[in-house]
């Protein structure tokens, strides 16, 4: 039982971690909570299904499951990256110097808009993700890890390693770190801040989309309102790890996934969705800087 909950928790946690990275990256640079990020994840899940539907319609539905999935991933990630950049350009950039409430409300508006855009165009009913892989897996004593879970874990680890390398080793990553430390100074030393912000949204959204595809694959069902809860939980994960801190978001996601899954297993599964919020509330009251974060600046 414990082992099984651990495996399930790690799987869900790595998905939360991927979404949380998007929140944390944007917060690190713009100091603003991108409410619409949860919807990007939802769009990603839908785009994955649409991509596979597209391939099937083109008569390629019988090719290898891995190829289909790879295409779904790329399709969803590319489109969501575009979505993220476009949203930033249209809804957030004009408000960069506005009072603080303005971008937040604008993000809320974008989030409602995207949710209902998907509802209007794709319908209110659940969409089914085609079953690409068999549900079996390895037996580990009295627990079981499915192939899908292994794949989710491996993919998330790969993406997170890739991101860490990108942020720490490339020139763009360096520019990003500089911008998050001091936007004005970064601008003065010749960093194209707007471009850095666009790249941040690009990467964050692509990771969110990957998380969406993985969840769709894992649960087999998606709905237009999954983005709201998942977004909130991922945000909790980001705060848990220390917002603005990328390794923190990864850690926070995993911890949150474990808490949820163990809590559902041992305490009560009815209140499963409440755990994240309770953690969030307690955390913000007692340790707002999170696990790995530094003391938060008070900014008005």
């Amino acid at each position: 039982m414990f082992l099984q909950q651990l495996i399930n928790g790690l799987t869900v946690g790595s998905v939360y971690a991927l979404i949380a990275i998007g929140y944390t990256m944007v917060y690190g640079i713009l100091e603003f909570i991108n409410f619409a990020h949860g919807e990007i994840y939802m769009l990603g899940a839908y785009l994955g299904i649409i991509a596979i539907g597209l391939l099937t319609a083109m008569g390629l539905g019988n090719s290898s499951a891995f190829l289909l999935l790879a295409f779904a991933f790329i399709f969803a990630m590319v489109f969501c990256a575009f979505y993220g950049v476009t949203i930033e350009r249209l809804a957030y950039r004009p408000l960069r110097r506005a009072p603080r409430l303005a971008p937040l409300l604008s993000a809320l508006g974008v989030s409602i808009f995207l949710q209902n855009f998907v509802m209007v165009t794709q319908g209110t009913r659940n969409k089914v993700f085609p079953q690409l892989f068999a549900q079996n897996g390895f037996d580990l004593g009295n627990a079981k890890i499915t192939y899908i879970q292994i794949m989710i874990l491996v993919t998330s680890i790969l993406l997170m390693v890739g991101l860490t390398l990108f942020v720490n080793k490339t020139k763009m990553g360096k520019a990003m770190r500089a911008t998050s430390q001091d936007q004005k100074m970064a601008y003065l030393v010749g960093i194209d801040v707007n471009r850095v912000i666009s790249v941040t949204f690009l990467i964050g959204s692509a990771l969110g989309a990957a998380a969406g595809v993985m969840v769709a694959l894992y649960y087999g069902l998606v709905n237009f309102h999954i983005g709201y809860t998942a977004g909130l939980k991922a945000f909790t994960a980001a705060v848990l790890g220390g917002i603005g801190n990328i390794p923190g978001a990864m850690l926070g996601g995993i911890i949150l996934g474990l808490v949820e899954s163990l809590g559902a297993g041992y305490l009560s599964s009815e209140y499963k969705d409440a755990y994240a919020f309770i953690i969030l509330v307690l955390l913000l009251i007692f340790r707002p800087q999170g696990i790995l974060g530094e003391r938060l600046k008070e900014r008005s």
Partner: protein
Amino acid sequence: MIKNKILEKSIWALWLGLLALPFMGKKAGILAIAILLVILLLPLLNGLIARFGISVSRLNFLSSSANWLKTNKKMALLILFSFAAILPLFMNRYFVDVAVLCGIYIVLALGLNVIVGLTGLLALGYIAFYAVGAYCYALLWTHYHINFWLALPIGTALAGVFGVLLGSPVLRLRGDYLAIVTLGFGEITRIVLNNWDELTRGPNGILGIARPSIGDFIIKQPIHYYYLILAFVVLTIFITTRLEHSRIGRAWVAIREDEVAAAACGVNVTLMKLLAFATGAAFAGLGGVFFAGKMIFVSPESFTFMESVMVLCMVVLGGMGSIPGVILGAIALIILPEALRQFQFYRLLMFGGAMALMMIIRPQGLIPSQRRKMELEEENG
């Protein structure tokens, strides 16, 4: 130059169409053309209207009518009130019902306006206080047969206490953190209502709540409810207006503008913030008790996050901190969807878009608050 602009706009339209392509299929092309037409024609339209002295992005006649209201206040209030008082006599039951709904949301929006508009604390779980009021009456009636009039102050006070309980730990947090925590509280409230079967009967809700009555006269027609809510609305407007121009109201605005400076001037920031939370929550509790008495049924479904967003939209669209603006916002957001029944499906889509657009084009709302207006102009200029 102009050619370049048209090219740029066409690229934008094409790009948005491309983004919509996987979701809409062939219809994305139509969307792209529609977007292109709108963004090409908008400046033309704007110029045309500007010629007649009114600009789309600055609905000046609204603020000038607000100015007129300011100078002839008593007269205007009297006219408005008598209009509201005789209005239901000329409407059928359906319209009266919609008007009652408007009334409930006016009370809610004015309450939230105290928190968001005056004090500048973004609260996203506001509907939880509404739920507290509604469930308070529902439970008091089903368990102890406490009537509406007694439940009214209890529910209002209880919601206020909840506001303080919720507010006290989170008020140290600023801006978006506060927003998220209040959102979390709202969700926790809903989840508890949904799962605590012994007390709230879970998703089934509580049935058979008594209608309010005065002596032997039972309030049950929509028109009776209309006059009851009208009284509540007048009470709410009176209290919030008085508060806004009182010492407390000025302290709230001072906190909104600059917390540190306000504290330095001797404003007890924590106390004032708590007071704002309690006041806003109390109005929501009042609305909640009325809601339970009107629907004679409550269930967690009425208290979702979308409801919080709706109330927030009313405050934002109407004009944060402006009482006439918020009232207009509430009426507009209730009546428009009723009037556009056939577009029901697209209602929230338009809300979302309008909210983002509003922040970019007219952040001060339809009828900006006078104080707020000064502040925004200063910041932009």
